[in-house]
């Protein structure tokens, strides 16, 4: 029990009449790298939002490091979907990343101290964004924007990192870079990633969860026809580009 970073028990979430998640039981161990896949509307993003407390569960419970959600002392980093972000807001990359170091309590005259600035600098250096720090976010490319969101999540030194489709609007090389980065981070951080990128799932994550309102599958990152069928309702075409792991087993 001690090794569980996230423990979800019988979680259900409803939006009005619609059930987004039903009876999810899932535990994520410390140091795990979990990928979540599933069709649109399958509740992937809702699950992430429930874990960070942005969405209230209709029933069931979530605990982080054994503590109930409301009282968590562990810091969680969250990387939202790019599509949901306001890109025209007048703010620079540097300012966005620094918001990750804000104090929890709303203190008057809050100023970022030296250690905040050092931490932000370090993260931007690792991500190769430091030369873009004074650029307004509306002038960033999709890949740069995505990396900025990751930097903002990481600058608070989280123990758990939740990512919502981190490679959705990113070109192949930036995507590779992001996965490489996540792999390195995973040495110290528990990662939960929602993705549509089945390639990523096959070659990076340690465990896989398939979500279509219910938890269809949870285990090793290897998909069988049955799972894909119950997830997407039809066989999915996946081309294996000579990848070390295959998403689908070979047809017999």
């Amino acid at each position, binding site marked *: 029990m001690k090794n569980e970073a996230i423990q979800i028990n019988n979680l259900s979430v409803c939006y009005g009449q619609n059930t987004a998640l039903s009876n999810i039981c899932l535990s994520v161990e410390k140091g795990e790298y979990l990928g979540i896949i599933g069709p649109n509307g399958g509740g992937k993003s809702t699950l992430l939002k429930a874990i960070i407390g*942005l969405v209230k569960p209709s029933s069931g419970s979530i605990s982080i490091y054994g503590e109930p959600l409301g009282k968590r002392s562990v810091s969680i980093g*969250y990387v939202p979907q790019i599509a949901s972000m*306001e890109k025209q807001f007048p703010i620079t990359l540097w300012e966005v990343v620094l918001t990750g170091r*804000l104090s929890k309590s709303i203190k*008057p005259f809050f100023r970022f101290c030296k250690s905040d600035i050092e931490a932000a600098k370090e993260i931007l250096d690792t991500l190769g964004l430091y030369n873009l720090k004074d650029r307004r976010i509306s002038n960033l490319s999709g890949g740069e924007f995505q990396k900025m969101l990751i930097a903002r999540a990481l600058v608070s030194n989280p123990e758990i990192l939740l990512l919502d489709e981190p490679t959705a609007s990113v070109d192949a090389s930036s995507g590779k870079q992001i996965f490489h980065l996540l792999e390195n981070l995973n040495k110290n951080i528990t990662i939960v990633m929602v993705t549509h990128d089945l390639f990523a799932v096959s070659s990076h994550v340690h465990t896989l969860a398939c979500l279509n309102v219910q938890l269809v599958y949870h285990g090793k990152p290897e998909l069988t026809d049955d799972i894909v069928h119950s997830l997407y309702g039809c066989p999915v075409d996946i081309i294996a580009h000579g990848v070390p792991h295959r998403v689908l087993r070979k047809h017999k």
Partner: protein
Amino acid sequence: MINAIFEYRFLQNAMLAGIVASIVCGIIGVIIVEKKLVMMSGGIAHTSYAGVGLGYFLGFEPIIGAFIFSVLAATGIYYLKKKAQARPDVSIGLFWSLGMALGIIFIALTPGYPPDLNSYLFGNILSVTRTDLYMTGGLAAFVVLAVSLFYNHWKAYLFDDEFAGVLGIKTSFLGYLLYILTAMTVVALIKVVGIILVLALLLAPSAISGLFCEKLFSRMICSIIFGIIFCIGGLWFSYAANISSGASIVIISVLCCAAAYAVRNLTVFRRKKEAKNEQLKPERS
């Protein structure tokens, strides 16, 4: 007009009211444009009319009634949005009409001749009294303090309130506070441009500064400067042409805003044309 300013108290009051109103307007205007709360502020402004009516009916200062009703409307709209998951545009529209309807009923119930409401509906900066000035000044001071004290938290909240929530920041506190600040701004502007014309003075300065200011802070400062220019320009125009001050301030703001957009679009158009010409050149040679 310069001599007149030194001579007449009412012109001094008008100038001061214009400057103070521009300061709040610049700060909150930028925020409501970025946070897409334009209709919300319009709704709050119109709901405050009920307070003006109640003030006349019960015999207290109408602007205080306006203040109470606009704060109630602001918190009401925010509460409905968060708790009852009501569509904000619907609840805003209902508050908007309800406020006007209540105002009309209260005025009708007031015994005696109906009071002149034009200065509340369309503003009359020349009728600003010392008391009005203290009230506007107090509201402005509160708004400026509330925004500047928590500036870094505001920035994070305005850019991405979900992420601020993940950090553990109490976003509902900031949300309520922002709506209340908007209500206070609207009340501070009522005497200057009136309930119906409030939106132009809130939007035009921040729209213009949005064309060339890259940062939130510089955008606020620019908006304040534009607001002051519009207010004083409108005041001069209304004094010279002897027409309503609220209307002339609004017309100057909107004309300047339209001109700024026209200039921007012309330069963009010209740049595109140049780029096109440059592309064509090598093909010809």
